[in-house]
Protein backbone atom coordinates (compact mmCIF):
# COMPACT_ATOMS: atom_id res chain seq x y z
CA UNK A 1 0.00 0.00 0.00
CA UNK A 2 2.75 2.35 1.01
CA UNK A 3 4.64 1.67 -2.22
CA UNK A 4 1.43 2.33 -4.16
CA UNK A 5 1.04 5.73 -2.57
CA UNK A 6 4.65 6.58 -3.38
CA UNK A 7 4.14 5.48 -6.98
CA UNK A 8 1.02 7.67 -7.25
CA UNK A 9 2.88 10.65 -5.86
CA UNK A 10 5.83 9.94 -8.15
CA UNK A 11 3.61 9.60 -11.23
CA UNK A 12 1.67 12.72 -10.27
CA UNK A 13 4.96 14.57 -10.02
CA UNK A 14 6.22 13.37 -13.36
CA UNK A 15 2.92 14.09 -15.13
CA UNK A 16 2.96 17.58 -13.66
CA UNK A 17 6.46 18.00 -15.05
CA UNK A 18 5.08 17.46 -18.56
CA UNK A 19 7.70 16.53 -21.14
CA UNK A 20 10.22 15.76 -18.39
CA UNK A 21 7.79 13.14 -17.11
CA UNK A 22 7.62 11.53 -20.56
CA UNK A 23 11.40 11.48 -20.82
CA UNK A 24 11.68 9.86 -17.40
CA UNK A 25 9.15 7.20 -18.39
CA UNK A 26 11.16 6.49 -21.52
CA UNK A 27 14.26 6.28 -19.36
CA UNK A 28 12.39 3.86 -17.12
CA UNK A 29 12.12 1.36 -19.97
CA UNK A 30 15.68 1.64 -21.28
CA UNK A 31 17.76 0.44 -18.30
CA UNK A 32 15.54 -2.57 -17.70
CA UNK A 33 15.72 -3.61 -21.34
CA UNK A 34 19.52 -3.59 -21.20
CA UNK A 35 20.04 -5.10 -17.76
CA UNK A 36 19.82 -8.73 -16.73
CA UNK A 37 17.89 -9.36 -13.53
CA UNK A 38 19.39 -7.80 -10.40
CA UNK A 39 21.43 -10.53 -8.64
CA UNK A 40 19.54 -10.59 -5.34
CA UNK A 41 21.21 -13.74 -4.00
CA UNK A 42 24.68 -12.25 -4.42
CA UNK A 43 23.76 -8.97 -2.72
CA UNK A 44 22.05 -10.78 0.17
CA UNK A 45 24.85 -13.31 0.71
CA UNK A 46 26.57 -13.06 4.08
CA UNK A 47 29.74 -14.60 2.70
CA UNK A 48 31.78 -13.32 -0.21
CA UNK A 49 31.89 -15.24 -3.48
CA UNK A 50 34.99 -16.59 -5.17
CA UNK A 51 37.74 -13.97 -4.88
CA UNK A 52 40.22 -15.85 -7.05
CA UNK A 53 43.95 -15.21 -6.90
CA UNK A 54 45.46 -11.94 -5.73
CA UNK A 55 46.59 -9.84 -8.69
CA UNK A 56 49.09 -7.04 -8.94
CA UNK A 57 47.18 -5.78 -11.99
CA UNK A 58 44.36 -4.52 -9.76
CA UNK A 59 44.69 -1.59 -7.39
CA UNK A 60 42.25 -0.63 -4.65
CA UNK A 61 42.58 2.93 -3.43
CA UNK A 62 40.79 3.65 -0.17
CA UNK A 63 41.78 5.57 2.97
CA UNK A 64 43.89 3.87 5.64
CA UNK A 65 41.49 5.31 8.21
CA UNK A 66 37.89 6.21 7.41
CA UNK A 67 36.65 8.94 9.74
CA UNK A 68 33.12 8.28 8.63
CA UNK A 69 32.22 4.68 7.79
CA UNK A 70 29.07 5.89 6.02
CA UNK A 71 31.12 7.46 3.24
CA UNK A 72 34.34 5.66 2.35
CA UNK A 73 35.75 6.70 -1.05
CA UNK A 74 37.01 3.77 -3.12
CA UNK A 75 38.74 3.78 -6.50
CA UNK A 76 39.48 0.54 -8.30
CA UNK A 77 41.90 0.61 -11.21
CA UNK A 78 43.08 -2.36 -13.20
CA UNK A 79 44.65 -3.32 -16.50
CA UNK A 80 42.70 -6.51 -17.26
CA UNK A 81 40.05 -7.31 -19.80
CA UNK A 82 37.19 -7.25 -17.34
CA UNK A 83 33.81 -8.92 -17.69
CA UNK A 84 32.95 -7.33 -14.37
CA UNK A 85 34.44 -5.52 -11.41
CA UNK A 86 32.88 -6.17 -8.00
CA UNK A 87 33.51 -4.31 -4.77
CA UNK A 88 33.14 -6.02 -1.39
CA UNK A 89 33.40 -4.65 2.14
CA UNK A 90 34.58 -7.78 3.93
CA UNK A 91 33.24 -6.90 7.40
CA UNK A 92 29.76 -5.79 6.28
CA UNK A 93 26.78 -8.06 7.06
CA UNK A 94 26.22 -8.46 3.33
CA UNK A 95 29.70 -7.85 1.89
CA UNK A 96 28.88 -7.34 -1.82
CA UNK A 97 28.43 -3.63 -2.41
CA UNK A 98 28.57 -3.13 -6.18
CA UNK A 99 29.19 -4.72 -9.57
CA UNK A 100 30.32 -2.82 -12.64
CA UNK A 101 30.22 -4.08 -16.23
CA UNK A 102 30.91 -2.73 -19.68
CA UNK A 103 33.49 -0.39 -21.25
CA UNK A 104 33.36 1.87 -18.19
CA UNK A 105 34.60 -0.99 -15.99
CA UNK A 106 37.76 -1.51 -18.04
CA UNK A 107 40.16 0.86 -16.36
CA UNK A 108 38.93 2.89 -13.42
CA UNK A 109 35.78 3.01 -11.29
CA UNK A 110 35.23 5.22 -8.25
CA UNK A 111 32.43 5.40 -5.75
CA UNK A 112 31.76 5.79 -2.03
CA UNK A 113 30.70 2.86 0.11
CA UNK A 114 29.42 2.16 3.61
CA UNK A 115 31.61 0.17 5.96
CA UNK A 116 30.04 -1.06 9.17
CA UNK A 117 33.41 -1.61 10.81
CA UNK A 118 37.10 -2.03 10.15
CA UNK A 119 37.76 -4.49 7.36
CA UNK A 120 39.01 -4.95 3.83
CA UNK A 121 37.73 -3.30 0.70
CA UNK A 122 38.15 -6.01 -1.93
CA UNK A 123 37.91 -5.51 -5.68
CA UNK A 124 37.25 -8.68 -7.67
CA UNK A 125 37.78 -8.56 -11.42
CA UNK A 126 36.28 -11.34 -13.49
CA UNK A 127 38.48 -11.82 -16.52
CA UNK A 128 39.06 -14.79 -18.80
CA UNK A 129 36.48 -16.81 -16.89
CA UNK A 130 38.44 -16.48 -13.62
CA UNK A 131 38.33 -14.18 -10.62
CA UNK A 132 41.23 -12.00 -9.56
CA UNK A 133 41.34 -9.68 -6.62
CA UNK A 134 43.15 -6.99 -4.69
CA UNK A 135 42.34 -5.61 -1.28
CA UNK A 136 42.92 -2.61 0.92
CA UNK A 137 42.49 -2.64 4.66
CA UNK A 138 40.46 0.29 6.02
CA UNK A 139 40.19 1.18 9.72
CA UNK A 140 36.75 2.53 10.50
CA UNK A 141 36.41 4.76 13.53
CA UNK A 142 32.66 5.43 13.33
CA UNK A 143 30.65 2.62 11.72
CA UNK A 144 28.67 3.44 8.62
CA UNK A 145 25.37 1.69 9.06
CA UNK A 146 23.53 4.36 11.03
CA UNK A 147 24.15 2.77 14.43
Amino acid sequence: MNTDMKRRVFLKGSLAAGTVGVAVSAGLLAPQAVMAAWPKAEFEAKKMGDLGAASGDINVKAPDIAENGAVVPVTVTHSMNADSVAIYASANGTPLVAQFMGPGAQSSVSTRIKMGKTGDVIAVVKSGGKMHHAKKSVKVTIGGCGG
Partner: protein
Amino acid sequence: MAKKSIKVRAKEKGGVVTVKALMNHPMETGLRKNKKTGKMFPAHYITEVTATIGGANALSANWAGGISKNPYLAFDAPGKKGDEITLSWTDNQGNSESATAKVK
Protein backbone atom coordinates in the same frame (compact mmCIF):
# COMPACT_ATOMS: atom_id res chain seq x y z
CA MET B 1 10.87 14.44 -8.09
CA ALA B 2 10.76 17.35 -10.49
CA LYS B 3 14.04 18.60 -9.02
CA LYS B 4 17.10 17.47 -10.94
CA SER B 5 18.52 14.61 -8.93
CA ILE B 6 21.52 13.61 -11.06
CA LYS B 7 24.51 15.83 -11.82
CA VAL B 8 26.76 14.42 -14.50
CA ARG B 9 29.89 15.83 -16.09
CA ALA B 10 32.01 14.24 -18.78
CA LYS B 11 35.40 15.34 -20.10
CA GLU B 12 37.27 13.73 -22.98
CA LYS B 13 41.01 13.48 -23.27
CA GLY B 14 42.82 11.25 -25.79
CA GLY B 15 39.66 9.34 -26.69
CA VAL B 16 38.88 8.56 -23.05
CA VAL B 17 35.91 10.20 -21.42
CA THR B 18 36.10 10.65 -17.66
CA VAL B 19 32.59 10.71 -16.26
CA LYS B 20 31.75 12.05 -12.82
CA ALA B 21 28.24 11.84 -11.44
CA LEU B 22 26.49 12.68 -8.22
CA MET B 23 23.02 11.30 -7.56
CA ASN B 24 20.50 12.33 -4.90
CA HIS B 25 19.21 9.21 -3.18
CA PRO B 26 18.70 8.14 0.45
CA MET B 27 20.29 4.68 -0.16
CA GLU B 28 18.61 3.23 2.93
CA THR B 29 19.81 -0.27 3.71
CA GLY B 30 16.65 -1.25 5.55
CA LEU B 31 18.75 -1.90 8.64
CA ARG B 32 18.58 1.56 10.18
CA LYS B 33 16.12 2.06 13.01
CA ASN B 34 13.96 5.16 13.32
CA LYS B 35 14.62 5.98 16.96
CA LYS B 36 11.35 7.89 17.29
CA THR B 37 9.04 5.17 16.04
CA GLY B 38 11.16 2.12 16.87
CA LYS B 39 10.58 0.82 13.32
CA MET B 40 13.23 0.26 10.67
CA PHE B 41 13.50 2.72 7.84
CA PRO B 42 12.40 0.68 4.80
CA ALA B 43 15.09 -0.40 2.35
CA HIS B 44 15.30 2.18 -0.42
CA TYR B 45 18.35 2.04 -2.63
CA ILE B 46 19.45 2.28 -6.25
CA THR B 47 19.73 -1.20 -7.72
CA GLU B 48 20.83 -0.48 -11.29
CA VAL B 49 22.76 2.29 -12.99
CA THR B 50 23.35 2.53 -16.72
CA ALA B 51 25.27 5.02 -18.78
CA THR B 52 25.49 5.47 -22.52
CA ILE B 53 27.93 7.67 -24.42
CA GLY B 54 27.16 8.58 -28.01
CA GLY B 55 24.33 6.04 -27.94
CA ALA B 56 26.62 3.13 -27.01
CA ASN B 57 26.51 1.32 -23.69
CA ALA B 58 29.27 2.79 -21.50
CA LEU B 59 28.61 1.28 -18.09
CA SER B 60 26.10 -0.85 -16.31
CA ALA B 61 26.21 -1.37 -12.58
CA ASN B 62 24.34 -3.32 -9.94
CA TRP B 63 24.19 -1.64 -6.54
CA ALA B 64 22.64 -2.23 -3.14
CA GLY B 65 22.35 -0.41 0.20
CA GLY B 66 26.13 -0.62 0.77
CA ILE B 67 26.70 2.32 -1.57
CA SER B 68 26.75 5.59 0.37
CA LYS B 69 23.83 8.01 0.51
CA ASN B 70 23.79 10.47 -2.39
CA PRO B 71 25.97 8.19 -4.49
CA TYR B 72 29.09 9.40 -6.21
CA LEU B 73 30.24 7.55 -9.31
CA ALA B 74 33.19 8.12 -11.60
CA PHE B 75 34.50 5.99 -14.44
CA ASP B 76 36.45 6.15 -17.71
CA ALA B 77 34.90 5.02 -20.99
CA PRO B 78 35.50 5.54 -24.71
CA GLY B 79 33.91 8.55 -26.39
CA LYS B 80 34.52 11.91 -28.00
CA LYS B 81 33.77 15.56 -27.42
CA GLY B 82 30.22 16.46 -28.30
CA ASP B 83 28.87 12.95 -27.59
CA GLU B 84 25.76 12.87 -25.49
CA ILE B 85 26.10 11.03 -22.21
CA THR B 86 23.00 9.67 -20.50
CA LEU B 87 23.04 8.34 -16.95
CA SER B 88 20.02 6.50 -15.55
CA TRP B 89 19.20 4.69 -12.34
CA THR B 90 16.42 2.45 -11.08
CA ASP B 91 15.77 1.72 -7.43
CA ASN B 92 14.22 -1.12 -5.45
CA GLN B 93 10.95 0.80 -5.06
CA GLY B 94 10.43 1.08 -8.82
CA ASN B 95 11.58 4.69 -9.20
CA SER B 96 13.83 5.85 -12.03
CA GLU B 97 15.76 8.96 -12.91
CA SER B 98 17.79 9.94 -15.91
CA ALA B 99 20.04 12.85 -16.88
CA THR B 100 21.98 13.79 -19.97
CA ALA B 101 25.00 15.97 -20.61
CA LYS B 102 27.44 16.65 -23.44
CA VAL B 103 30.99 15.36 -23.34
CA LYS B 104 33.33 18.35 -23.18
